[in-house]
């Protein structure tokens, strides 16, 4: 089945007010294009889930789309704070966001349970510290075989997962290389999956390298072709991280006025991703484009 559609159509069909959502990616493959489309469509009261909510989650928060954040590390990686989040989570904040907090392993374990069709997931963690003390979803179980006490977290089944990949076919068979983050667990845990790809290729091309497929099309509902959809994040083999932007973001996001002005110019003020890319500084994309490091491939013969 051909599931190709525009980002606008994919978001309109899958992200509803009040739903729970993951736009996954760990530094790598973070689909900013999807986040910006959600802001433009004016979604509200979302439960935003990710191990590492970063700039695009902060932008969703500033735009008023998020009611609750489920996370394990919230910052601007390598640079500093998420200021929209901080303005809504500190003692001096007039409005407050609901926070549900784990460590990476804990939140990942919730997704592992969801992806495996189990009600909970055990992990050897949290003994003595305060994370479990402030989060009632972290409980203790006793191993029925050894008697060992372990932490347990409940399965998480997000309503929607948005997964960016290097290439996919029209059915949503998605191939990923480089850092994989928790994309596989997120995709299998979610009730609905949107795949966004740098390149749309034929199913024959996917079949030539089946080990590369991280998400099979049978769990995917929409496929979007959105090259450069991850900027300023990076895509291995396609483009580098725009680190200058992450550094500049600290100043842009520190004051609500400059933050809103940026959203007006680069999110509300553009109609789609192509329009956003056209507004970037001339020559930037060429500067970020990856230098080739092609691997030799393998023999699938038998």
């Amino acid at each position, binding site marked *: 089945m051909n599931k190709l559609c525009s980002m606008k159509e994919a978001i309109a069909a899958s992200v509803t007010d009040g739903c729970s959502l993951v736009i996954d990616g760990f530094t790598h493959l973070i689909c900013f294009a999807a986040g910006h489309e959600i802001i433009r469509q004016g979604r509200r009261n979302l439960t935003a889930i990710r191990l590492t909510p970063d700039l695009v989650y902060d932008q969703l928060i500033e735009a008023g789309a998020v009611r609750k954040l489920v996370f394990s590390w*919230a910052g601007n990686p390598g640079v500093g704070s998420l200021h929209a989040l901080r303005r809504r989570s500190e003692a001096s904040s007039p409005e407050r966001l609901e926070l549900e907090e784990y460590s990476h392993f804990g939140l990942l374990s919730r997704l592992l349970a969801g992806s495996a069709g189990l009600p909970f997931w055990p992990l050897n963690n949290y003994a003595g510290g305060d994370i479990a003390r402030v989060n009632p979803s972290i409980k203790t179980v006793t191993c029925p075989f050894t008697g060992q006490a372990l932490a347990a977290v409940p399965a998480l089944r997000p309503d929607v997962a948005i997964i960016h990949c290097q290439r996919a076919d029209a059915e949503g068979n998605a191939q990923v290389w480089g850092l*994989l983050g928790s994309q596989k667990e997120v995709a299998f845990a979610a009730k609905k999956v949107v795949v966004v790809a740098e390149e749309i290729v034929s199913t024959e091309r996917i079949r030539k390298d089946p080990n590369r497929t991280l998400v099979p099309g049978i769990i995917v509902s929409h496929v979007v072709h959105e090259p450069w959809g991850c900027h300023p994040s*990076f895509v291995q083999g396609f483009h580098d991280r725009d680190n200058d932007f992450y550094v500049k973001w600290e100043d842009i996001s520190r004051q609500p006025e400059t933050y809103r002005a940026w959203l007006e110019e680069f999110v509300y003020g553009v109609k789609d991703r192509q329009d956003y890319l056209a507004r970037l500084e001339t020559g930037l994309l060429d500067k970020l484009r990856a230098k080739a490091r092609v691997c030799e491939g393998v023999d699938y013969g038998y």
Partner: protein
Amino acid sequence: MATELSAVPTASERMAYRAAQELRDEDVVFVGIGLPNLACNLARATHAPGLFMIYESGAVGAIPERLPVSIGDPSLVTDSLAVVGQADIFQCMLQRGLIEVGFLGGAQVDRWGNINTTVIGDYANPKVRLPGSGGACEIAVHARRLLIVMRMSKRTFVETCDFVTSPGHRVNGKRRAELGMPGGGPTRIITDLGVLDFDATGEAVLAEVYPSVTPEQVRAACGWPLRTAEALRTAAEPDVSVLRLLREKLDPQRLYL
């Protein structure tokens, strides 16, 4: 361009160098963000070429050709031995017990090596909201040796952490063994003034000071009554060749220095 090279190390250079000395060739190290990232890459460029670097992002046996700007940098992937999902990193590498050395920093540390990276103030109504645990809690639980790298002040070396994100040797009066934590806990705190070791009770004591730093200065920068080891050592400092390596090759953009 030839530049005048100061032979006096900055605080960050001291800490990166001293932290690198803790790493042995072929140690399996879980590389953290910030100065630890620089320390590990310095160790690999000098005395520990076989250092086996694992990054939380999934890169295993990474040999980055540029200093990674974050722990999820694409240069960690290129030429690494393996790239795995984060579930494999936390379950198969860390929880399985394969990590020898972990590195952590934080906003607060106490005498037992408990670390706070979550909030300053009350959890429900914090004065400052910090990024949170990330993988820090599980690194503290599972690494066989844990190195803490932090600048020292009364604000950061505190009597009691506002929140214990990553457990040290003793949490709320209970020892690691009682709490069932498999890892060895903190082995050293490397600071800009000196180095703290942990005694048999799990308490941090001053063990090394840098040349030109006095034990009184270190105690004045500590929020608890810091005890001093009987044999106080002088902490090793980087020489000019190491400073040149740090400044000109490893971190020319001063991302961490």
